[in-house]
């Protein structure tokens, strides 16, 4: 379709809330060059997020949604956790079904959209936390990579089950004391970015969300490669400031520390992905 579906019915215009009217008038549609630089000027696709004040995950949501090259034809698939509290606030077609099945649902959606709309580009993006992606949903995550599903998977890694009150996850670092790990975690953080490479992802990136422009680049590369080649994976450090005892204004500082340590920027591209990225750069789209 197009952004026409966001046009307000004239007969109902007087009754529509202002944020819906703004979506039609001030959001960036139909422009693949949209990006985080639009944020101060354009209507965002996320309305009044419901996360904690200063939560880096909210930054990630804003940067990702601002960077989607094709928002009017993008389906966002979600799982359970802090992220699921945000989904009803997103202006696009979004899905929440169960905890951990996000990549399976996304696979079904992508394949049927390709079948129903062979002449249109419809991007499918999965946004889920570390518990959903790596613990309860690992099977569905990796199997979608094995099957070479043309979807982009974005993991918000806050290294903890935050929404349920701070329990250890597979992505918690070894030794860290969280609930359900009262003696400290006994085993290493799962290197999910490496599993993604080994499982067939064509573009993989590990990073924090300290740099909005860098997030934009990663999102665009991942979506273009997924569209034309196969699965792509973005691993983002979005620390839970609440669970690690940081203040609301310290998320960025925590991520900048992460940039220097275990979340130092790391990028992997398959040869096919490199070709796509090169072509998109030449078109001025990345």
């Amino acid at each position, binding site marked *: 379709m197009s952004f026409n579906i966001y046009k307000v019915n004239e007969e109902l215009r007087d009754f529509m809330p202002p944020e819906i009217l703004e979506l039609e008038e001030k959001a960036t549609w139909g422009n693949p060059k949209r990006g985080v630089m639009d944020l101060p000027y354009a209507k965002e696709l996320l309305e009044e997020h419901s996360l904690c004040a200063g939560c880096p995950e909210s930054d990630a949501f804003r940067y990702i949604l601002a960077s989607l090259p094709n928002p009017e034809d993008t389906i966002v698939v979600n799982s359970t956790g802090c992220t699921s509290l945000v*989904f009803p606030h997103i202006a696009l077609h979004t899905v929440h079904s169960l905890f951990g099945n996000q990549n399976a649902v996304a696979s079904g959606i992508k394949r049927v959209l390709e079948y129903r709309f062979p002449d249109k580009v419809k991007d499918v993006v999965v946004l889920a936390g570390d518990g959903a992606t790596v613990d309860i949903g690992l099977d569905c995550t990796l199997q979608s990579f094995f099957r070479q599903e043309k979807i982009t998977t974005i993991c918000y890694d806050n290294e903890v089950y935050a929404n349920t009150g701070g329990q250890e996850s597979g992505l918690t670092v070894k030794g860290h004391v969280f609930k359900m790990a009262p003696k400290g975690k006994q085993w290493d953080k799962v290197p999910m970015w490496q599993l993604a490479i080994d499982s067939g992802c064509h573009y993989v990136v590990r990073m924090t969300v300290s740099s909005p422009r860098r997030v934009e680049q990663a999102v665009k590369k991942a979506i273009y490669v997924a569209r034309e080649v196969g699965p792509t994976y973005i691993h983002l450090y979005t620390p839970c400031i609440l669970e690690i005892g940081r203040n609301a204004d310290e998320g960025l500082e925590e991520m900048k520390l992460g940039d220097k340590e275990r979340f130092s920027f790391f990028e992997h591209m398959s040869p096919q992905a490199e070709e796509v990225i090169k072509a998109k750069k030449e078109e001025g789209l990345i």
Partner: protein
Amino acid sequence: MSDNGFSGVNKSGQKIVSPDYLLFEAPREKVFMTGSEAVKEAVRRASVDASVSYPITPQSEAAHLIGELWVEGYVGVYFRGESEFGVMSEVAGCSMAGARIITTTSGPGTLRAMENFPMWSGARLPIQLVLMARGVNAPLTIQPDNLEISFLLDTGVMIWHAENAQELFDMVLAGFVVAEKTDVHVPIITAIDGFFISHTRESIMIPPEDIALPPYNPYKSPTPTIDAEIAPGRYIKDPFVMKSNYTSYATHASWQWEVRAAIERSRPYAKHYLKGLIEEYGDPEAELVFVASGTAASQAKEATRLLLDEGIKAKVVKVKSIRPFPHQELLEATKTAKYILVPEFNIVGWLEREVRAAFYGKSNATIIGTPRVAGGMTMPPEIIYKDALKILGKEVSHVI
């Protein structure tokens, strides 16, 4: 526009005909096939967009055959998922994106997939699941047993139980039609007793293969199709299930009521396309009535013939629809009953429970859940006959 009221061809090049024409009017020819093959032939005529498969006995063959239809161009999307949990989520995605979708499972696979079924109904997805029942572990079993139907009764899906391959063929077609009605739009599980139906051949009558059901129209769904072709659901201001307040609780409660109400609204459609939610067989005035579903109904019909040899008039009321449950029809059909026997292929007697709940305070008949076989045991008509004679205080003369 053709005589049957529909025109055009589907994506497979088959002529589109009305459901009534396909099910009731089109000429049929006799074929000799297994229940699994009957599923294939029904899917071939159902304008199916997608199917996702996973191996488990005894449903695997039906899933293979749907794969063959994909190769032949009758099904648009087909692949093997990673597990039943994954498959049922993949078919949910397919359905959300606007596909007519069918999948199959059995026994333990049903339980592995379990979390998905209430999600399907809550998301109002008209997915069809052909359940070839086999019982559940432990101990490991692959034998005929329909215990898993019991676990599905409260998941918010429609459940129909076919007696034989013919009924399965017709139910698969009717299942899409009824489940996809805008005022219904919930999942449909078409169940059979595995092996007995899936793996045995019988003569069935099927319409020609160049005609098919009208394709699914996803824009008649009561919830937005997830394809970015229509405006998304607007939950921006008040994400209703996400807040801890009275409004969100009330919304969730009314949503669940609505799913159950949607199943109730399927009654007139199911009645039409299944030619009744029940089927009566035997002496209309009988005091001895068997209420049964699936292959237990076949065995009960045989038992009524044995009983007639003894001069005992009996009747079978076959329940075709388990959800919605045909309370009124059953009460009407058992008016003359003094004894109601419920033979079943499972250890818990889920149909007996349903019958008792429906009849409580409304019937004076004595309800007895017998015979009950499980774990792959067969139910020869003689044991039904023997139990019936014992209950009536008569001598058992047939040798068994």
